[in-house]
Structure formats: C-alpha cells, structure tokens
C-alpha cells in the first residue's frame, strides 16, 4: 500500500493561474519535504516541514508556498506558475531530518 500519496499524478495549469499540489502520508512522520525535479536533473529541495516548523531553502522562489494543516497532509502552492515551473514535484517524508526518506509517485506539472 502506498505510504506517501500525491495527487494528482498529472496537473495542467495555465500560465499565471494558481495551482495546488497535494501530498498525504500514512507513516506519521515528522518531516515532509517538497522537491522540484526538472527534466534530466536531480531533485531539488524547495522546503520542508519538521512538524509545524516550516523551513524554506534560500533559493526557493517566493512564488512557491507550502501548508501543512496536520501531520498527514502537506500542500504545495504555486501562486503564479510560469513556464519554467513545469517539472515533476516530489513529496517525501522521514521520521527525522536526515533519516530514511520515503517518496511519493510525484505530480507532473505542465504549464500552458
């Protein structure tokens, strides 16, 4: 059974139209991460939550926001998607920082 679930698997959004990607976990892990992976590149960490504490990477654009309303769910909000934001977005969880991370299947975002 999937332990980290991302919805939807594929998302198409219009240039500049806000979009939200969803991630849920059944592992009760403390940490939830969002990664951006562009074609033929390594995943790049955008931010993570340790419980309710939000930690933004220094080079993550302001256009990207996140919410974690409870332990199980975490959302990635892109306020005004640009063509350059088209990518695979990966959610991951771990019990503690630096520990074993479990990844979801990803959401492939297309911006038209």
């Amino acid at each position, binding site marked *: 059974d999937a332990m980290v679930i*991302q919805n939807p698997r594929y998302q198409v959004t219009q240039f500049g139209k806000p979009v939200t990607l969803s991630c849920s976990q059944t592992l009760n892990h403390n940490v939830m*991460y969002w990664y951006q992976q562009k074609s033929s590149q*390594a*995943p790049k960490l955008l931010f993570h939550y340790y419980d309710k504490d939000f930690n933004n990477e220094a080079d993550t654009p302001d256009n990207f926001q996140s919410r974690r309303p409870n332990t199980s769910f975490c959302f990635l909000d892109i306020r005004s998607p640009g063509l350059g934001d088209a990518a695979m977005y990966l959610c*991951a969880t771990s019990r*503690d920082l630096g520990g074993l991370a479990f990844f979801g299947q990803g959401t492939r975002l297309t911006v038209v």
Partner: protein
Amino acid sequence: AQSVTQPDIHITVSEGASLELRCNYSYGATPYLFWYVQSPGQGLQLLLKYFSGDTLVQGIKGFEAEFKRSQSSFNLRKPSVHWSDAAEYFCAVAAAMEYGNKLVFGAGTILRVKS
C-alpha cells in the same frame, strides 16, 4: 561547497553483465548515504542505505553498495543486470553539519540495458 557527484550521466550494459554506478561525496565526516531508483514518470524508490556498521550493504532487487571512507565513495553494484533495471539512479547524502540533515542528490545516472 558540499556536493554529491555521479560522474557517469549514461551507462549502457548488456543484460546479464555486471554493473557498477559511481558516487562520490565531499564531506568531512561520514554522512548517511542512499541510492534511489526512478523509472520514467515515477517517484523515487529506495534501493539501499548506509548509516553505520558494515560498509557493504545489501538492498532490494539484488543491488549492493560499498562505502569506502578513504575514497568518499558509495558505489552501487549488481552482479547481473536485468532489462527491468533500466532506469535512472540517484545517489543521495544526508549529513547534519554540512547539509543541515537534508537529503542532497547527485545528478543521476541513466542506465540502459541492451539485450
């Protein structure tokens, strides 16, 4: 800057042949080390991990990796490759002091398997 290096962007091997994918990291102490595999359009699946102890670790799907402190390497190996192993492989490192305990990935190695 701290980094994870996978020097081979693409590797092609024949089915049944042995495989070694290279990974080097720059970090003063021993970090946590991982190998993940990603099939096209899919998320990342953990193959194996090293935290401490025996430097030769066994993973799923017949993969193993060896941590060599003197070389700052964590190379992935498989004695006999199957066509279903074709995918992209990522080495990753988590280290408290250097990476803030966050997972940092190498650029990946795409494995092609020819029959």
